[in-house]
């Protein structure tokens, strides 16, 4: 098992390196000189040149590339072109907000989606199933930011039940949770739509297996049959796609942070785009892929752990 974990981790390195290289190349061929963008078109040439030298924008591309990759290895994400602050410290400041938001979405989605999926599978072909199928497809069709605006309007503005702007303060957990409610619920509903569909499909597959028929003919009660025999196997695919969904949630969290004006990685990213802060931009994009790759590896390991039929080699 340890060998398997080590192997998966090592396999992640080239992917990460590839992602970093790709992002670097794509961002650096972008039109627009960051120094000019920062200082304005009328700044004297020598000031612009001095700025370029100071931030290393004047060095040959390969030198900048090596510095970028070297920095990433050491966990140094470079310095913001705008504020001069290390990007890493900005990230650490806002990361908890994004992580709690994504986790909230994940938890709501799993805890609501799995039971709904089971109900749909058990009532296969009957009205509850049809309704659930239609609702989950609708959930997939509504863009997350729009769902956020709808909840913000009806629950936040009309009912005034929850705060709609900002993220609150970690020092006041209750206030923080209140701020988290609407954005978390938005992501939770999106996640629920995905989870319901996969749970239903996976449960239907398992329920048609031979061993379920055997168990039924042995006189196992319906409850035990579903919860003990079927659900355990049905959850394996759910776990594996949950990682995929978590990556989707990370993308949606960008939108949600904008809708609810929450601090977070997404907000930081869009700010960097607006300010043409290339260093922050490329570091943040690489960071997203670091998360995605880590989630994938973690899932593979978890998958190998819960399903003994998968070989570790």
């Amino acid at each position, binding site marked *: 098992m340890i060998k398997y974990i080590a192997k998966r981790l090592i396999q992640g390195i080239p992917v990460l390196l590839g992602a970093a290289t*790709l992002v670097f190349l*794509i961002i650096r061929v972008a039109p627009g000189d960051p120094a000019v963008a920062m200082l304005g078109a009328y700044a004297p040439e020598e000031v612009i040149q001095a700025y370029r030298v100071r931030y290393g924008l004047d060095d040959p591309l390969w030198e900048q590339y090596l510095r970028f990759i070297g920095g990433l290895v050491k966990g140094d994400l470079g310095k913001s072109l705008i504020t001069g602050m290390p990007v890493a410290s900005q990230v650490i400041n806002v990361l908890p907000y994004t992580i709690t938001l994504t986790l909230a979405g994940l938890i709501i989605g799993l805890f609501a989606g799995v039971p709904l999926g089971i109900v749909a599978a058990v009532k296969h072909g009957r009205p509850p199933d049809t309704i659930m199928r*239609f609702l989950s497809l609708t959930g997939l*069709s*509504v*863009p*997350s930011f729009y769902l956020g605006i709808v909840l913000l*309007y009806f629950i936040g*503005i009309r009912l005034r039940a929850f705060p709609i702007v900002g993220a609150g303060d970690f020092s006041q957990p209750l206030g923080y949770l209140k701020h988290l409610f609407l954005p978390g619920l938005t992501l939770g509903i999106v996640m629920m739509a995905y989870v319901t569909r996969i749970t239903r499909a996976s449960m239907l597959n398992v329920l048609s297996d031979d061993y379920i028929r055997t168990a039924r003919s042995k006189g196992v009660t319906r409850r035990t049959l579903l919860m003990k025999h079927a659900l355990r196997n049905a959850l394996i695919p759910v776990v594996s796609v949950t990682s995929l969904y978590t990556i989707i949630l990370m*993308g949606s969290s960008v939108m949600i942070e904008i809708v609810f004006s929450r601090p977070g990685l997404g907000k930081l990213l869009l700010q960097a785009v607006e300010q043409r802060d290339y260093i922050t931009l490329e570091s943040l994009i690489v960071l997203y892929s670091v998360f995605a790759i880590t989630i994938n590896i973690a899932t593979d390991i978890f998958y190998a752990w819960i399903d003994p039929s998968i070989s570790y080699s």
Partner: protein
Amino acid sequence: MPGSIHPYRILDYFLSKQNRRLSIFLRNGPAILGLVMAIIVTFVAIMAPLLAPYDPLSQNIDNMIASPDENHLLGTDRFGRDLLSRLIWGSRVSLCVGVGAILIGMTLGTIIGILAGVSSRRVGDRIMRVVDVLLSFPDEILGIMFMVILGPGLINITVGIGLLMVSRFARLVYGSTLSIVQRQYIEACKALGGSRIRIMIRHVLPNLYSEIFVIGSLWTATAIRVEANLSFLGFGVAPPTPTWGNMIRDGVIHLVEAPWLSLSPGIAIAFTVLAFNLFADGLRDIADPRTLGSI
């Protein structure tokens, strides 16, 4: 017309010989619903100049942020522009970008996927590794990155989302190609001296059509959704051209006093995306009857 046929069976009678699959599709309620919804949106997009009661760009300072009434069924925005007309014209952008992006992604992705699939394992692995790197980013992040380089505009956002879709199609086609290449008739073709290009075009590609088409219609829904996302963030088609995403972006400032400005374009997005999702779901049931429902 033979009188002995049950009314519901008439269609089957005509279709059964030529196309069994079509008749299965026609019995799939949700899929029909999706198709009808998609046709409605397409009709609205094509007929926009005739259907829209006003010019979507004409401003009216005397009638800004008006509530819905008989003159303006959905009210007006902060420049006094008729919201319904903008909504109708906005369907053009959504459909053009959605379908255009899929065509770009489908074409490039299929070429890359087949090439990787018929190449030696080493070359194929290398190509797919690059594809996997691209797949490791969330759609929104990759979309933002592409739009930063390309800049806003109709063509650019179509290309941007198209590029986003390339890796998805390449992954899909690669997997299918690998399984097709192992079949005996490919071996036979190789033994007869068929060139690699001939195998690709004559023997592999035709076997991929149905799968690419089914998944393509599903991913059209995704492309339309991503366009709305990017447009909402301000990366899409630039104002004043109406897109559903930038209408929501404009309207959200007035959410308290004029919620319809941002709430109605969202319904249009959801309707369109749902149309393609329902349709694709139905197609998938036909393409692979073994899947109990859908994943």
